[in-house]
């Protein structure tokens, strides 16, 4: 059990954020993971007085406050219906009801645990993390990205590359919109450009490995794949509003919610290895996965003038946004025994668009953090052979590792089977 010197129920996000900039202070989620750690917390910051325990339906989808419990999320009727039960399936195996009545969405996402069913499922959806004053750590992104590229850390490079490309496109679009705005915006653009440059570098060095950028062979050939990607970039990028305009839209980057300065980051980017390091991570499997980002964080530290510890990890996660998309979802996990951590977790989305469907696959508990693959276009039905090919592609391209719950070989086999089942369940005739 950790030792806690002081306890502070924050009266505003600003207060929570300020307190959280001091090394030794920590935000409390449900405290389930944190409790298992050792050491001393100077001030435990409690966000439970800020009304962040609500799931709010917005025109785009749902905003889930960081203090919403996993049980609340599991029982939410709108999300249950929207995901066809997939979200509930992702949550119901996590320890027990009494546990899920405490564990929070904020702690689960901010922790970015490799084994996380929550992160695996959210990564399969069109979801975003909303961080209070997160942009103030933006210069670190560049450092983070460079270090990542230089070290070429995770073997998940091709997938990461695909993500980077997507992000780069978003950033570019954001840039165009912002370019016409005020001085503050110009600074952001500068940051964004750096990010973009860094990302392009990262992407470029990896493209050779996977010319399709994480796109599986599908009924239609690469041109369509490209079209699909272009299409994909668009819905993520709304207009970034001017500084005073409050926005509920799904633009990434800096936005204002109820007057609070928030930075919105796509979930898959937030989970990518270079983004931040998992706090209080004790899981051995996690350590390997996090080693890279650990280095990154140290580097970033040096740049973060006045910021304690690692830039991004001093942020306050305010909410998670789930954006409605024309998709069907499914979730599967394999566990050695009920309520244990998953050996492998798999979320999938079957997204309808012009000319057909795309499959988005999210694999977590590899044992490292969830990563995603996105397919090209499939016609309306997924033939058995295509589903098998998709499974094989996923097995080949999603890196796995060993820990005491399963070997890399076993996990890779599971990737194939679960990916194929997801394809059949969502796109096929239901038989699998």
């Amino acid at each position, binding site marked *: *059990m*950790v*030792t*806690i*010197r*002081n*306890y502070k129920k924050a009266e505003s996000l600003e207060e929570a954020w300020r307190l959280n900039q001091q090394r030794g202070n920590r935000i*409390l989620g*449900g*405290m*389930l993971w944190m*409790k*298992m750690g050792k050491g001393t917390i100077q001030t*435990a910051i*409690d966000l*439970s007085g800020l009304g962040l325990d609500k799931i709010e339906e917005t025109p785009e989808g749902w905003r889930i406050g960081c203090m919403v419990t996993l*049980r609340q999320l599991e029982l939410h009727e709108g999300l249950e219906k929207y995901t066809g039960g997939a979200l509930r399936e992702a949550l*119901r*195996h996590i*320890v*027990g*009801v*009494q*546990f899920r*009545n*405490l564990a929070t969405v904020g702690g689960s996402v901010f922790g970015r645990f490799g084994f996380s069913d929550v992160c695996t499922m959210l990564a399969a959806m069109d979801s975003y993390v909303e961080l209070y004053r997160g942009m103030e750590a933006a210069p670190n992104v560049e450092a983070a990205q460079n270090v990542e590229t230089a070290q070429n850390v995770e073997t998940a490079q091709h997938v990461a590359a695909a993500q980077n490309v997507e992000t780069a496109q978003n950033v570019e679009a954001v840039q165009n919109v912002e370019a016409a705005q005020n001085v503050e915006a110009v600074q952001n653009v500068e940051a964004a450009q750096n990010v973009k440059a860094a990302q392009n570098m990262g992407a470029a060095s990896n493209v050779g490995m996977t010319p399709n950028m994480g796109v599986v062979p599908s009924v239609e050939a690469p041109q369509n794949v490209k079209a699909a990607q272009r299409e994909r970039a668009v819905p993520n990028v709304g207009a970034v509003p001017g500084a005073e305009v409050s926005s509920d839209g799904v633009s990434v980057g800096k936005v204002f919610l109820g007057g609070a300065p928030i930075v919105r980051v796509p979930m898959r980017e937030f989970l990518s290895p270079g983004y931040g390091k998992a706090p209080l991570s004790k899981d051995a499997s996690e350590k390997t996965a996090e080693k890279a980002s650990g280095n990154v964080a140290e580097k970033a530290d040096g740049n973060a003038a006045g910021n304690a510890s690692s830039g991004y990890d001093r942020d306050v996660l305010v909410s998670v946004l789930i954006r409605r998309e024309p998709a069907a979802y499914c979730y599967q996990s394999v566990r050695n025994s*009920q*309520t244990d951590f998953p050996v492998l977790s798999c979320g999938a989305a079957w997204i309808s668009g012009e000319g057909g469907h795309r499959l988005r696959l999210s694999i977590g508990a590899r044992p490292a953090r969830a990563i995603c693959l996105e397919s090209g276009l499939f016609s309306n039905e997924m033939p058995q052979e295509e589903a098998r090919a998709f499974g094989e592609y996923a097995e080949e391209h999603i890196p796995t590792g060993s820990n005491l719950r399963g070997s890399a070989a076993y996990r890779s086999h599971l990737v194939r089977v679960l990916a194929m089942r997801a394809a059949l369940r969502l796109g096929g005739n239901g038989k699998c």
Partner: protein
Amino acid sequence: MLITITLNHKKITSEVSPDTLLIDWVRAQGCASVKRGCETANCGLCTVFLEEKPVLSCSVLAVRADGKRVTTLEGLQEEAAEFGAFIADQGAEQCGFCNPGFVMNALALFREKPDPTEEEIREYLAGNLCRCSGYEGQMRGILNFLAWKKEKKSAKEEVR
């Protein structure tokens, strides 16, 4: 820090340190049914109701329960005895260590879902570990209890 908790319908004000856990606080108030069975938030033995929800008291700071209602098995004697008899009938209670947490969570289940299916029972009680039984006795006991309650209810309705 000074906190006030309504424990089993009784308002109690006391001084705690910031990291006092709810489990240790309720035990200090004499609620010895609440026990610690693990260090990893896994076993369910420490289950109490915080307001109306079952939670792991080993993982809640006492300060976070300030101003709230906490209920332990001691506050649910009648309900617990009624249900417990059905579990004992099946010999499902062996060493009995898991029992308080199990009974608390089963009562929470009945409140939330008065007529659960077997699958729902299994799912709701998955976070209550028992190292002696194979859970089958508990399942039989629960099903018998639910059948008995149903009978009692329909008998009442007939009388009316």
